[in-house]
């Protein structure tokens, strides 16, 4: 089993953007350790030469649609659920021109 540290939890909360208090992080670390301990039994099985299963319905292929425009969601419906919007745009706090 890999070594799980507080830093692991910290990194995971950053990757998934969930804020957690110190206390919660400790509890999560303990939980994750137990669960991973259980999950690690998978290492017992020999899976050499086994292909990973991406889809449980192996014969489903080439599902595509024609290039046709369909009904759109009215902007009002979209913005109705929005926590904050202005001028038809979803409003968020100022963003540094970063990101991918």
């Amino acid at each position: 089993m890999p070594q799980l540290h507080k830093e692991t939890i910290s990194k995971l909360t950053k990757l998934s953007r969930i804020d957690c208090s110190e206390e919660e992080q400790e509890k999560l670390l303990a939980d994750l350790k137990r669960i991973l301990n259980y999950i690690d039994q998978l290492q017992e099985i020999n899976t050499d030469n086994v292909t990973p299963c991406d889809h449980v319905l192996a014969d489903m292929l080439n599902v595509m649609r024609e290039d046709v425009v369909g009904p759109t969601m009215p902007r009002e419906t979209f913005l109705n659920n929005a926590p904050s919007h202005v001028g038809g745009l979803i409003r968020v706090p100022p963003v540094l021109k970063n990101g991918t």
Partner: protein
Amino acid sequence: MTQQWEPVIGLEIHAELNTKSKLFSVAPNRFGDEPNTNITEVCTGQPGALPVLNKEAVRKAVQFGCAINANVAKFSKFDRKSYFYPDSPRNFQITQYEQPIVLGGTIIAEVEGVEKSFAVNRVHLEDDAGMLKHFTNFAGVDYNRAGVPLIEIVSEPCLHNAKEAVAYAMAVRAILQYLDASDCNMEEGSLRFDANISIRPKGETGLRNKIEIKNMNSFSNLQLAIEAEIKRQAQEYTQKSHLPPNEVIKQATFRWDPESKQPVLMRTKEYAEDYRYFPEPDLVPIVLTDAYINQIRATLPELPLQRLRRYISQLSLAPDAAFFLTSDKLLADYFEEGLKTCSNARNLCNWIIVEFAGRLKDTGKTILTCGITPHQIAKLVNLIDKGTITGRIAKSIADDMLADPTLDCEQIIAGNPDYQPVHDSAEIAQLVDQVLASNPQSIADFKAGRDRAFAFLVGQVMKLSRGKASPAVVNDLLKERLKAKGKDEG
């Protein structure tokens, strides 16, 4: 100092496909509409929404793969790429990481007169993100662009200077244009370039750390950015030669700021995202048959390279002129339209891409948008060929045409006596005699064997005639007179 360095450049080009609907959503794929009006539950990442693949996007990707002689994968699939950003409706992009639809391929481009071959690593389908608009105290997100189909074209790191990179990029753009696969509009963002740049001492075989520059939205910016970065890295290595190379240049990503014409740091490697790619469970694999792929290959339209070679071999155009013309399908179409009424391809080409283009530089217009029809330019070229007007007069006429594109060039000539060339030998003979009389030294020089003196005398006659004398007639008369003088003076 830069000569001892070999730049190694890879380009990633994102091209929006011009399908009617988006890649996984049936929303319209259109630029410029009111924000958040071209959306569905799928491309705004509503819970419960599911992606369904657009078959036309697949066809265009396959078509592009065939056009670059790549390997079209018979089996490809989609993956989720996780990262958080407000313009991402699901906070994961659906892309093709492990098994892309196209592998390999070649881009052939003219670089400073030489045809070069560049290797493509892969081409894959993915969906675009929305657009973030920045205001002082907040930012606004518009999801109209979210979900638009993209093909990402990844080159091998086989470009070695900025000019090669630009030529490669222009060649890719031309292919997309000829296939009508994308609007290729760099200002609107339907064609975007990211460059990965590293340098190494000539002879070194390994690759050093690279810098990524994103968001170069024009060929000139692409060239500027790459040249600047190469220079910067060379300076760094030179100044910090006491440090191991991987500490001098550390991997980082920059965004090119078109206003300041500078790269702006986005993130360093320490903050590199872990994208956690894994197969997209909501989509099933794409399996293509030989028949399908061959059908697409067999029905490819004429491609830029084919057109280029045709222009060189059949129309005898110079290679760099032909490359420039064929790099923009609309320009080449314009040229061929003009060819319908003009048989001098070389001259027509020159007038389009040098004379008129040069006059339009910095006006914000191009030959395609200035309102002058190809037939007008063809007419002008025909008039020069026939000798009806001189080259110099034609240049003035060109200026007039640009000032008022509705005018017909023959009308312009008819309306301006200065444009009516003088063919009358008697009139020209007078001017020739006048010039000869005023330039005895030149006559002597010419007789002494200096051909430049002849050209000088021709020039003087042309000047006297205010450009209207027919050069052919001037030439003949001058030669005649000089010969006669020679005889006279024994």
